[in-house]
């Protein structure tokens, strides 16, 4: 992979998704790519994690059981307004993603997505923040 990034400080990522299997495997693969993933399996968990730690970027699934993704996004933006948020949406529900961008999300990806695409967006978000 990208050797240059190996020596940098790991990226702190908050991954909020209620699909445990997906979160677990993405976390492992991201870990290999110098991205340290904090897992949250619901909107509530995500908010709790956000209060305890600073993150470089958050990835948020818009379709979760306990809370509407857009509501979680609004809360995230309230707590840490300058943290970029990348949204994951189901195919065909781009409408919600566009709405999310209006509420300050950085970008969105359609699920299931390529890991490389996701990592690309994460780096783009961090670049922009700087």
């Amino acid at each position: 992979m990208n050797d240059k990034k190996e020596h940098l400080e790991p990226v702190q990522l908050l991954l909020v998704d209620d699909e445990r299997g997906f979160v677990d495997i993405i976390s492992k693969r991201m870990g290999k790519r110098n991205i340290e993933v904090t897992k949250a399996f619901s909107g509530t968990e995500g908010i709790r994690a956000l209060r305890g730690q600073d993150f470089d970027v958050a990835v948020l699934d818009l379709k979760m059981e306990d809370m509407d993704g857009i509501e979680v996004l609004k809360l995230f933006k309230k707590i840490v307004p300058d943290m970029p948020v990348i949204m994951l949406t189901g195919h065909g529900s781009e409408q919600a993603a566009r709405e999310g961008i209006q509420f300050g999300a950085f970008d969105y990806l359609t699920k299931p997505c390529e890991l490389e695409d996701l990592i690309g967006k994460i780096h783009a978000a961090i670049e922009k923040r700087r």
Partner: protein
Amino acid sequence: MVLIITLVSLTPLFLVSGIILYQFHVSYKEKVYDHLGELIQKHTQNIDRFLKEKLADIRFLAETFGFEDLSDEAFLRDRLETLQRDYGPVFVDLGVVNAQGLQVAYAGPFKLEKAVYSKAEWFKKAMNRRFFISDVFLGLRGLPHFIVAVRDNWKGTHWILRATIDFVAFNNLVENIHIGKTGFAFIFNTKGEPQTKPFSDIMPDRKTYMHFLTRTEPEKNRINIVEARDHSGKKKIYVSSFLKHGDWMMLFQQDSSDAFADFRRAMGVTVLILLLGVFGIVTTALILSKKMVNRIARADREKERMNEQIIRTGKLASVGELAAGIAHEINNPVAIMVEEAGWIEDLLEEEEFRKSANLDEFARALKQIRTQGKRCKQITHKLLSFARKTDPRVQDVQLNDLIAELVELSAQRAKYAKVVINTHLKAGLPSLKASPSELQQVLLNLINNALDAMEKTGGILDIGTRLEGANIIIEISDNGPGIPEPNLEKIFDPFFTTKPVGKGTGLGLSICYGIVRKMGGEIEVRSTVGKGTTFVITLPAKGGAGESPIHRRETTERQPPRNHHTSLTNTPPEQRYE
């Protein structure tokens, strides 16, 4: 229904006509009877007056001159001449008869001097009365005549002055009564013997007039009008009236058909009008009800078809929802599987596995998992794209990519239909400003229609794209059976379908038409029966917004003249939906 309409409209017509006709008939009959009665009364009075006048003349003669003067035949002749001068040849002769019945004096054309009347019936009757008018009889002279006689006294004995009234003159009085073609009058005595010249052919039956003669006394003083059938069954009107103090009866007869001729004519016209009216009403009722029944039947059929289409659309929608749900559910496990494979790939890069003999085989297997996972993803994507509600949002669309995707999606169906799909896609087309899902719907619909058309025989489906100025042209041609010209006109109408009931909604092409128009383009069809059908969609390329890119004339000129060509739109400026 025809029966009810006919009955309802005819009943009042018949009722009103019937009532009016009846009233008219009654009043007309009254009028005819009144008229006839009056006429007969007048004539009866005339004849009565005639007889009275003649009697008065003779009486005047008898009372003025007496037996002595009148017994002188020369004087009597003189008197006859005076009478004939005053009244014309009404008086035929004059005679003076003594109490023994011997005619003592005679003036007239016959040789009746000294004639003896003692046995004559009129003489016996005249001797018993002051005045006497006899019935018509032949007498001594052998000619029909009647006698007016006045009895007077001379030296204690009766004598009689008699005059013969010319029958022809009297007869004329009655013959003058002539109404219409068949109205004639006759006079009878109490025995029923005709007192006027009888017309044998039109004489009333004896039975009929005898009936009138047997009237009771009070009835004799007024006019009797009766309608009855004669021996031949013909309906006739009889009017009877008595004269000469009940001795004679005038009987007038006329055929009813003649008397009521005017009425019959009016009735004929009325009935004719009525019949025409009935015919008109029945015809109208028939035509109207037939029309109505047809219309209702058509509406029923239409409704049935609509219902089926609604059900079908509903089914499609629920199947679509189900598919979408499954696709969503499958997405996550597939994603996890692919990522797990990726994780193994990640791990294989580590030192300890690098020496493994099967490393290449691992790598190949993992790549395969990844590839197949991507394939699953594509399938679910397509399923979702197909099932979800169309997203009208306008994006930049690469038309060729979209077509390639659709061809891939249709490949399986095409294989079953033995259709070969050829694409001639112009490389480097500019992107379109359009809703991908809507555009996809349009193209998929046209492809599916073409496949349907060629399903039985197989064939070739050509899909081509090209650039013409600022427009992108998509041509979808099949070599199926083609569309007959009458249908070509209606092909974009909603609910028009040539597919069997339950197979097609008839909505596909009308939706296509709507979408293409919304994009600011146009869709045309040309078809030759037996050769195939071509749909041509012209869309403004990206950046062509605001221009009016397509002119109808331009497109028309492009068409080969042998083909039927229907141009459907005047292209509005491109519309955007955001």
